[in-house]
């Protein structure tokens, strides 16, 4: 295990901090940092505010009613660009975990596909055949859902569909639903598939309405999903508070990375003020923190290449029509430089570069970082594609 040094950071400008989260398993670093005392060790008195939607989190951070929050990785980028929100620049210096999503298809769709092809279901090629057949017989379009327009879920779903030649905008209806409603909507025949985080894919199987065909990990090994973000003006006014928050979150991520802590972590997460009510419908043994990678493989590092991949998907999906310098946006919003300052003070090995090419490593590899070597995870795309941040 990585030994983290408790650094002497500057005194936080603001000690009373309010952070927002959604009741999902990957809010764990925020909850653990509070419950295990990592925030208070940094001289912070942090209150966690459970929110009902990503829209609510964005509004409250923009208006200053929250100091910072767990966010889908696309939100600070979209907000900085003024997409679907007022143009409020945000910054993130902490990635909340890798992986954790999956795509589920309904049983009727899976059955129909199996009559058309014996191709493995993890490719959308069978789905493409079904869509073609439905178009020929003038059957209504299939509908698939993700959790938010500016989400990794949306981009992974579109990526998976596009790789099989499906036009996500014309060949089917793409919509948004809260993850808690996905399986129920599938049962009622309102949606034919969806991309969501766990445990919402397990639930479809549990209810007997559908099955996961491919995990987010399989689509893109160790793909990013959510971040911790603040507005740029908040960061500028409270740089030491931001550093203190990051230090506590990094400690929480490293703590969560150890499987022997998972039971305790679930006990804390299931307290009524966090995930208790949202996840009470599921038996506890179905909940697992193993699908998300919190610290190893530099999981909490805010790679600018990840920002570029998201921005590129925003362009591909027509969300971002302006001709802009994507790299400049990625540099303004994703701040590995701030992460490195904290990591340096905490004396653990961390990446020294801002970007990495994706799709080139089929297994663990070693990156020469600051303070020592960093073991990195695989980063393949399921279709064998590569993403070079220097080209886009």
């Amino acid at each position, binding site marked *: 295990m990585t030994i983290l040094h408790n650094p002497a950071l500057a005194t936080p400008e603001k000690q009373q901090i309010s952070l927002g989260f959604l009741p999902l398993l990957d809010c764990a670093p925020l909850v653990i940092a509070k419950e295990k005392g990592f925030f208070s060790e940094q001289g912070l008195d942090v209150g966690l505010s459970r929110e*009902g939607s990503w829209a609510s989190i964005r*509004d409250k951070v923009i*208006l200053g009613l929250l100091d910072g929050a767990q966010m889908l990785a696309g939100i600070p980028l979209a907000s900085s660009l003024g997409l*679907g929100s007022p143009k409020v620049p945000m910054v993130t210096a902490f990635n909340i975990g890798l992986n954790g999503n999956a795509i589920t298809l309904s049983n009727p769709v899976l059955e129909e596909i199996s009559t058309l092809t014996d191709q493995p279901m993890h490719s959308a090629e069978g789905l493409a055949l079904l869509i073609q057949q439905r178009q020929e017989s003038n059957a209504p379009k299939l509908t698939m859902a993700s959790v938010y327009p500016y989400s990794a879920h949306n981009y992974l779903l579109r990526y998976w569909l596009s790789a099989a030649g499906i036009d996500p905008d014309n060949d089917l209806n793409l919509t948004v639903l809260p993850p808690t409603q996905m399986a129920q909507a599938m049962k009622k025949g309102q949606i034919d598939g969806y991309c969501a985080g766990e445990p919402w894919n397990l639930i479809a199987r549990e209810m007997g309405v559908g099955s996961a065909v491919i995990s987010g990990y399989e689509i893109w090994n160790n793909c990013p999903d959510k971040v911790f973000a603040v507005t740029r003006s908040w960061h500028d006014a409270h740089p030491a508070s931001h550093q203190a928050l990051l230090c506590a979150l990094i400690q929480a991520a490293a703590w969560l990375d150890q499987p022997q802590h998972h039971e305790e972590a679930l006990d804390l997460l299931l307290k009524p003020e966090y995930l208790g009510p949202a996840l009470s419908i599921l038996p506890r043994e179905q909940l697992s923190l193993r699908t998300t990678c919190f610290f190893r493989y530099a999981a909490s590092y805010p790679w600018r290449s990840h920002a570029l991949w998201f921005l590129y998907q925003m362009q591909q999906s027509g969300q971002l029509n302006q001709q802009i310098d994507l790299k400049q946006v990625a540099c303004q919003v994703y701040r590995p430089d701030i992460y490195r300052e904290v990591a340096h003070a905490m004396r653990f090995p961390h990446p020294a570069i801002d970007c990495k090419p994706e799709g080139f490593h089929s297994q663990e590899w070693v990156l020469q970082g600051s303070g020592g070597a960093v073991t990195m995870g695989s980063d393949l795309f399921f279709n064998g594609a590569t993403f070079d941040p220097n080209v886009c």
Partner: protein
Amino acid sequence: MNAAPHIQERVLVIDKDAARSALLEQALNDQGYEVVCRLDDTEGLINRVEQIKPDIIIIELDSPDRDVLEHMATLNTHIPRPVVMFAETGDSNTIEQAIQAGVSAYVVDGMSPDRIQSIMDVAAARFREFQALRNELDNVRNELEDHKQLDQAKRLIMKHQNCGEEQAYQAMRKMAMDQGKPMTQIAKNIISVLQMLD
């Protein structure tokens, strides 16, 4: 003072609390606005919004369905967009107050900032009023519950100490003073201890 608006904005209220949305509808009607629909169940929300074609949607801030409306707002310009986008041109104080009261809204382009502000103010006031009512109700319920527990603790003492009502009550008061704890807390402790002995 409350002159009828020149154009009737079509208001859609989405709130799983039907009592609160009824209160809000009444208040908006009084101000001359037309609430075209109240939804307490959001199944098939996208189709409903497309059919109803509201100019403004009032929705509980914490509703998970807001993310569905966020998606709709990205689809086409005639669909209501999040009210926080109007914070730059309108009165951001109004929006902040509304959010603190637990209200959010989605508004079509072209609606005047005055009208947005007026509707948001009405909604925020009604949400706050409803919250105050609910708090009051909770307080009454808690008081009733405390009363029940005091009574139960007293009866348990009477049974175990074989004493009268006044004596039992005085014993509890003394414990409360000695331990510096409220009577309700003492009652709870007595119940949990003496019930084990029963």
